[in-house]
């Protein structure tokens, strides 16, 4: 029983965090918001050069061969810096799907090495999401049709843009036609891989939400330590302290829930889907509260465009229902919890 991260995992996280701190400052995010594409090829190339896009591509296909547990840390960093990019969709969720295809599947050799080097953007359409993030910009779209999963070039689909309150989210409604030429996998295998696709998408969002919550908490702590009223920092008042203590509690409570889910996904546990949903609900709770308390302790400043809090709040609100809304995830947990023969109570915490 070892519920810790390896030195490699922690060192990598630290490196990515330091890198993003300088390369993805809030001023830069605002600039990228105002561009048509909403993406910075330069930023993405730099991130790829740090090895992040290669993280979970198998070593045989040019990657680092790390797993969901490493992504549980990295997605928090992507959230913390509110990266204006759907990077995890390609590098984590799509790479996870492709790496699960049979070893001789041609799509592996076609796409995985390019994901690792950071030269391809994939967008993923899954029935759980009505719209596809970054559909407009992707080179290849991964799309589901019944039990089948297809990979289809951008040129063969129509995309209708749907603006979001988070200017970094570029959502599109995709019209397309499935064909034998685009088929990746179908039947039972397709069905199973769609389920795992959803779990990785949901876990990716959970990690990002947790990172966003931490950033909103940090911004709020900075603000209340500086802002003075009645002759002292408002952060010295208990009403303000207790708001932020509650946020810290939700964040700390969510972390190990996220990590168990990541470990379960990496190991292919049958319980992984339920654990992912528990992680999602815990992380949604933390980020939702961090946004609400964050804007409250910022006072009117929190309601402005000028103060950075808005970027992280909007991302948190937007991601709350991505890859399954709370109703979906609650139902997945409830279906287990209230079923006959569920193994509940002490001693079953890690039971598959």
């Amino acid at each position: 029983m070892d519920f810790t991260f390896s030195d490699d995992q922690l060192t990598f996280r630290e490196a990515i965090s330091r890198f993003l701190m300088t390369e993805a400052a809030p001023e830069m995010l605002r600039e990228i918001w105002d561009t048509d594409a909403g993406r910075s090829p330069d930023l993405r190339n730099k991130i790829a050069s740090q090895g992040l896009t290669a993280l979970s591509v198998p070593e045989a296909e040019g990657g680092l061969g790390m797993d969901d547990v490493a992504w549980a840390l990295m997605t928090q960093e992507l959230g913390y810096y509110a990266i204006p990019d759907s990077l995890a969709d390609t590098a984590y969720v799509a790479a996870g799907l492709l790496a699960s295809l049979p070893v001789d599947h041609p799509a592996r050799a076609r796409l995985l090495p390019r994901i690792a080097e950071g030269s391809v953007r994939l967008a993923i359409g899954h029935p759980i999401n009505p719209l596809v993030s970054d559909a407009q910009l992707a080179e290849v779209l991964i799309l589901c049709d019944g039990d089948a999963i297809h990979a289809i070039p951008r040129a063969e689909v129509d995309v209708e843009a749907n603006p979001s309150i988070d200017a970094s989210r570029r959502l599109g409604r995709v019209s397309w036609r499935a064909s034998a030429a685009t088929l990746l996998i179908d039947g039972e295998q397709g069905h199973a891989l769609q389920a795992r696709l959803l779990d990785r998408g949901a876990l990716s969002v959970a990690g990002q939400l947790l990172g966003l919550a931490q950033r909103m908490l940090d911004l709020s702590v900075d603000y209340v330590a500086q802002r003075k009223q009645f002759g002292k920092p408002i952060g010295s008042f208990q009403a303000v302290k207790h708001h932020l203590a509650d946020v810290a509690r939700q964040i700390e409570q969510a972390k190990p829930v996220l990590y168990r889910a990541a470990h379960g996904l990496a190991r292919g546990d049958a319980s992984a889907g339920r654990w992912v949903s528990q992680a999602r609900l815990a992380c949604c709770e933390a980020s939702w509260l961090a946004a609400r308390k964050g804007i409250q302790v910022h006072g009117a400043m929190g309601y402005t465009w000028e103060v950075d809090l808005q970027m992280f709040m909007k991302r948190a609100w937007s991601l709350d229902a991505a890859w399954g809304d709370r109703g979906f995830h609650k139902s997945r947990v409830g279906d287990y919890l209230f079923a006959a023969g569920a193994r509940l109570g002490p001693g079953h915490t890690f039971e598959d």
Partner: protein
Amino acid sequence: MELTYTPEQIAFRAEVRAWLKHNLPAEPLASYDTREGFEQHRAWEAKLFDSRLSMVMWPAELGGRGCGLIEWLIFEEEYYGAGAPMRVNQNGQLLLGPTLMEFGTEQQKKHFLPRMAASTDMWAQGWSEPNAGSDMAAITSKALLDGDHYVLNGQKTWSTRAIYADWLFGLFRSEPGSTRHHGLSFLMVPLNAPGVSIRPIKALNGKDAFAEVFFDDVRVPVANRIGAQGEGWHVAMATAGFERGLLLRSPARFQYTARKLVELYLAHQASADRDPGLRDAVQDCWMTAEAYALSAYHTVGRLSQGAQIGAESSINKIIWSELDLKMHETAMRLLGARGELLASAPAAGDAGGWLEGFLFAQSGPIYAGTNEIQRNIIAERMLGLPK
């Protein structure tokens, strides 16, 4: 990260499970807030001790097994999962015990710890005073040095089960004229010493669950002091840290209550579902209990890497106390009109056990440092906000 148990851990779990199966009392013990129940619990503790299961983490020479924290979590899971009795001597075993191990002399350890593990000595706490509650540094009870003894005068209060206990540990002002956290000493006081008088305080459940303890020229040997003269605050803070930290409220008992709550909901689903919030509340409780368990395992992992438990002790305390309250509130809502019935009421059915827990859960956010104080600690020590 590897979330599986070793074969040795699996074998240990099986051993504890089998032992409990053979040794659990057939009938539930009487409440440990009564004299009769207190002595029943003492006998049960002695039985645990005889199989070296009362303090599994303590070294063999103190009556334990020298287990690690994971084995301790496993023990707790099996113990509470089997519905075994509450641990009556936790104030001693979980609060004073670790303090003695860290600050006690060899002689103190050798004398007190095995007797504590066996519950030959039962311990009560002596922290709060009528005017020193959340503000513990306002303590005024005195311990004046007189040769090789301290002479104690003053009053302690909210001392859990003190009318039944054998010993009390707590803080006394040993330096005349000192203020706040200076000049305090940490003493162990036999409750049968001349000059000690104990007046029970009836709790919400009508039982003598706690007490006021009065000291009138009580003579206590200097050898009963833990740590240096005047350094009691430092020693006590370590004790408070253990209390709020990992040990006092291991997750297993809350996971057990959460399981019971799910079963209660399923048994009354038809009536429960008329209130659409109830199912969600049950599920939320269960998920929080799991999150708390995961957090304990995560903390154990981090401790093994050399981390210290800091302000997260305060987070733990808020989590378990609010969870316990919410679980029992939800149970009361599920039980509806039967919720008010005492266990002895003929119509109580499965309601009775929840009421006692509901009453006790009210105290969770208050004892061991109120949750308001815990939130201050999180804000100041973890987030760095100004005082």
